[in-house]
């Protein structure tokens, strides 16, 4: 608590212009005014989009449940031979990506925060994909050596 107070007093000593400039920068980014009383904070932060309506959450929840059932169904279709293993792999992973995006965009509030955090998320995802890409030769060259050794007709 004492720390919070100290920080606050520091902020109060800030030059007036600087705070004003900052406030302007924030309104540009869709943020609200710096100081609000308790009630205004609660309601305006909602209006600003710190939470969509419960109906939106419920719809996303329903969609996620349906998608889980769907990936289960794709797996069943693959086991009964209706679709090939490759098709079901693509469908199931596609469903997983859609589910992850729904959770990230709505539940994690990226629909409001994306432009404030994208510079952290994009490099991480790019680096993550790079890990997979630089490892791919290991897989493909492995297949090749098998093909050379085992599958050449005698």
């Amino acid at each position, binding site marked *: 608590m004492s720390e919070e107070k100290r920080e606050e007093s520091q902020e109060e000593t800030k030059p007036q212009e600087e705070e004003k400039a900052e406030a302007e920068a924030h309104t540009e980014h869709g943020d609200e005014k710096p100081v609000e009383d308790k009630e205004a904070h609660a309601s305006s932060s909602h209006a600003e989009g710190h939470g969509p309506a419960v109906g939106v959450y419920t719809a996303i929840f329903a969609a*996620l449940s349906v998608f889980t059932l769907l990936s289960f169904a794709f*797996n069943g279709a693959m086991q009964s031979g209706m679709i090939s293993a490759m098709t079901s792999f693509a469908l199931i992973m596609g469903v997983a990506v859609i589910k992850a995006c729904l*959770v990230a965009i709505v539940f994690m509030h990226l629909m409001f925060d994306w432009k404030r955090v994208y510079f952290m998320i994009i490099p991480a995802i790019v680096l*993550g994909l790079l890990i997979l890409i630089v490892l791919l030769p290991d897989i493909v060259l492995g297949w090749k050596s*098998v093909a050379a050794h085992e599958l050449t007709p005698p």
Partner: protein
Amino acid sequence: MAHAVQEEKRLHMGLPIPNGKLAMWLFLVTEIMFFTALIGTYIVLRNGQPIPVHDLVAGMDQDGNGEIARSEARGEIADLFEHGDQDNNGSLSEHEVGQIASVLSLPWPSPHQVHLIEWIGALNTFVLICSSFSVVLAHHAITHGDVKKTTIYITITLALGAVFLVVKAFEYNSKFSHHILPGYVFDRLDGSRGAQYLAKVQAELTEIKEHADHVSAEAAADCDKLLRELTAREKEGLRSLTPEELGLRVNALLEKHPDLHLTPVIPWGNMWASCYFAMTGFHALHVLGGLVVFAIILLMAFFGTLGAQHAGLIELTGLYWHFVDIVWIFLFPLLYLV
């Protein structure tokens, strides 16, 4: 407390987001890379096996010749069973041979082989989705200053997370009881490992014979047949079963009677177990971490200190929890389905 509320919306130098949210997102992106590394390792190990699993099924499924190789391997396995069953006429049908061939040809254990049950994984996915839903509702409630509702939703989230861990514990227990642990799986049978396998299966078959009333009559008869063959071949002047042959026979027996307490041969089983426990173990630790935070929030509610000023705390906890959910959204299909 009013100070704390103001502090929450105070503007900072730098980025136009609260410091807490910035820190949480920075943490989450390191987590993204952490889990990508684990999942990437899994993908490479799963797909990058340069050596075929079994000499009998060498080169299968690798390219366009896969079907030819598969039918050749089927022929070889059928031969094996004909020769192996000289002293009794228990040879397998073409369909069964095909099943064994396709099981052994897999360059990676199938979920079925390692006792992963799809619907349990799907159930756990659903449990985590529900908990994600309840945590956003908790955040929604606290931004409206409704501490009572928030407490209820956080309790629900905590309970759902605990359900996830309990289900996970049952799954782990099933792995332990089937000896699907790194280093314990018989995935290759050369050298001393083969001798160990022969001895182990013989002991298991003897055990089943001694407690024959625990299994169906047919299963007991099949086991007895295999045991007699294992021990009696030498007397009849036949060469003894190699560990590989025995492995195929045991896998075939387990296809017929899945409940028998016999050790199967699981190609790449140790590697699979390492990947499985690394990925799901780290995920479960993350779930546990989330539960600790939810418990702290509930304690705050219990002592009456939880209030609208904690909307940020609940939002950040929610961010973490959704991330844990997203990781499972990928782990579930990768481990249980594809």
